[in-house]
């Protein structure tokens, strides 16, 4: 048996090969434009700053990506991170720093498991299940903290996840690199990851092919919780306090990163490179808003526009052409 014969019409697999670099090019273009047009964007200090922001966002986006590939969506990340930060700071005197971080992390994994259980076993739509968890976790955090942030006593161990360096590289960036590597292994090399793609692509077909759909969905939300837990520990370490309103935009930013990276929100598709690029784009845009001294409210407006545009583009690249034609026709008319 020879190797698989190629189609007779030339290298037809080109688009599939070209797709990931396309997003890379977009990311690089945005970086280049920003470096040229936005004052202070290209400085080393600012680039490290962008990467720090991108690191936390990226770690959590890894979890969002898994859920999105499963054709689901996670809204509870921000609220569960806030709840975890409050629990960590409150537990600190009793458990010590490491114990508190572990406790907070496990809490988020548990929330992910509840989401997974609701979606997998009880067929609750992901939007409803995770929105419900958002409200519950948010409420719990506010109730526990009494409405105000609780400060953690200053300590080097506590601030290490956010401010520490190993070999001169900031710890969050190292953790993000590890998270992306783990996500890549899960998605591209593991049986679990393949199962997620299949379930996201067609859950009925997956069941009939003999896959355990509930188990795959449950594990997806649980692993997503694990990624969020890593991000939440760094966030808590950075603010050195328990904050009931720690990162309200986290779910939206991670969904935006996935959508911008090109993951269809309908599930079944996506890779690590797309997530990394999506995260970098979102982080750079947020940074540009800050550097241009625009109100931070602009970040959300920009993000929303970005998500909708990204989804439109995914569905139909011809949309770009249509938009251009519409604009040019408008000018002529």
């Amino acid at each position: 048996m020879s190797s698989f014969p190629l189609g007779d019409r030339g290298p037809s697999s080109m688009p599939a090969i070209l797709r990931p670099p396309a997003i890379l090019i977009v990311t690089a273009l945005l970086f280049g434009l920003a470096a040229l047009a936005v004052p202070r964007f290209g400085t080393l200090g600012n680039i490290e700053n962008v990467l720090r922001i991108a690191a936390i966002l990226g770690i959590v986006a890894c979890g969002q990506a898994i859920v999105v590939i499963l054709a689901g969506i996670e809204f509870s990340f921000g609220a569960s991170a806030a709840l975890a930060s409050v629990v960590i700071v409150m537990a600190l005197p009793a458990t010590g720093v490491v114990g508190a971080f572990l406790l907070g992390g496990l809490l988020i994994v548990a929330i992910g498991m509840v989401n997974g259980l609701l979606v997998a076993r009880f067929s609750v739509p992901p939007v409803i299940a995770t929105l419900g968890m958002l409200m519950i976790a948010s409420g719990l955090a506010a109730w526990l903290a009494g409405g105000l942030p609780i400060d953690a006593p200053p300590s080097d161990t506590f601030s290490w996840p956010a401010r520490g360096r190993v070999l001169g590289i900031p710890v969050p960036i190292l953790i993000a690199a590890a998270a992306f590597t783990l996500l890549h292994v899960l998605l591209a090399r593991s049986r679990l990851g393949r199962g997620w793609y299949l379930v996201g692509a067609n859950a009925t077909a997956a069941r009939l092919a003999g896959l355990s759909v509930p188990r795959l969905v449950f594990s997806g939300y649980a692993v997503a919780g694990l990624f969020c837990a890593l991000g939440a520990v760094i966030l808590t370490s950075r603010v050195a306090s328990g904050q009931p309103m720690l990162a309200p935009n986290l779910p939206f930013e991670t969904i935006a990163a996935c959508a911008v990276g090109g993951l269809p929100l309908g599930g079944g598709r996506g890779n690590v490179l797309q997530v990394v690029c999506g995260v970098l784009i979102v982080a750079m845009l947020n940074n540009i808003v800050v550097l241009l001294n625009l109100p931070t409210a602009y970040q959300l407006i920009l993000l929303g526009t970005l998500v909708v545009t990204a989804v439109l583009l995914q569905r139909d690249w011809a949309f770009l052409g249509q938009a251009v034609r519409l604009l040019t026709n408008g000018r002529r008319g």
Partner: protein
Amino acid sequence: MNGELPMTIEPAIALAMRDIAKRYGATCALRSADLTLRTGRVHALLGENGAGKSTLVKIIVGAVKPDSGSVALAGRPVAFRSVAEAIAAGIVPIYQHLSLFPELSVLDNLSAFQLAAGRAGLSRKALVPRDEARAWLTRVGLDLDLDRPVSLLSLGERQLLEIARGVGRNCRILVLDEPTAALNGAEAERLFAVVRDLCAGGAAVLFISHKFDEIERLADEVTVLRDGATVIDAAPIGRHDRATLVKAMLGMQVEHEHRSGSAQAEPALVATGVRVAAGQPLDLAVRAGEIVGLAGLVGSGALAIAATMAGAAAGRGEISVGQERFAVGDRREAVRLGVAYVPADRHAEGLFPPVSAIGNASASALARFSTRGILGKARERSAIEPLLRRLYLHPARPDAEAASFSGGNQQKLLIARCLALPNLRALVLLEPTRGVDVAARAMIHRAIIEMARTGVAVLIASSDLDELTALCDRYLVVRDGAIAQELPGAASTEAIMAALAGKAAA
């Protein structure tokens, strides 16, 4: 214009498409397609899956724009920018997958185009007047309560309703894409009568079907597409015999294989007293190497029985596979025991559209390619690629998304998924070649026979009697949710048909 009188009186040309080409990326769907529809005539469009029929139809109905070539409607060049424009110009598409709103009433559905064409703001005024709606229904031979929700109608009634909706407006060209695939005999007859009526009223009909019987009965002319080009252009239906048409479609002679003749003694897939969802207790045994056909009319329950045997449908009891057993409805355990399954609805239940061809074929056998949770991609590739090659997957791109293949080749992916099971012992197929072209059908039949010859127990539920008689060693006739009669492999098509209708039971 040229002042020359026609030799014979030909009906006016309703639609002329010349030298149409369309590429999708590197794939050339149409190279040079011609199509001429005349008013008052039924025109059959033939071609294997992937020949470009769907693309041509999409161009006609305004869903896709051609890269080059000309389209003229009644002599005037047109370039539809949307389906709405095509509908407004009198082109009425009727698809295999119905486009009705099941929760809405008959009247609402009849008014759908009006609602779509109107400005925002729904009002009762946007609905078609009830008298007019009733007249439309009468034209297609329907007598329905206008306020009944469409979900309560039969499949045949829904299809006629869809036609009524289309012809209620000015219908100049009716496009029927495999309209009878899901219909029973009586419903199909009714549809044909309506089509003839419309023709007599001056409409041109484009009829796409894989069933030669229907084409010969209904069509006046035929066009054959092969590999994106027209190879037979608007020939009168009597001019070519079936063999010539098939040869034109394939560019070669199809090879026919018949029966495995490999049935062994020991039963391999056995149900005893199993409760199927419908309620009747089920006793059924398929021997190793045997191909058993479940024959039943639409709604007889034959599909449900087959699905139950594969663990794909709910019920009560156990099914044994050799010495082992699985609980009815436990599809996962059934797969572990080597029971492969091809569902009836490829898109809803079988395919993973965004996943590669390889990923689709390996879905049931991931355990075989994994060690400690890590997927051996090289192992997967080297096991699956030969299967795809054996089935002549076309185009031969194992890494392309399943969605990019034609229907017949998508079906091959589902067959490959069965072949990939490491301990394949039983194979249950529902409508294995529905909507599949002649070449893919031959390939799939050959694969089924080969599997039977290696000792796999095969159970096929199909509404296509030609398919069953080409393959089966034994027939089980299903009526009212139960196996009513058994017939030997030698039984004639007529005998099976009589049994289906319940005549031979007396």
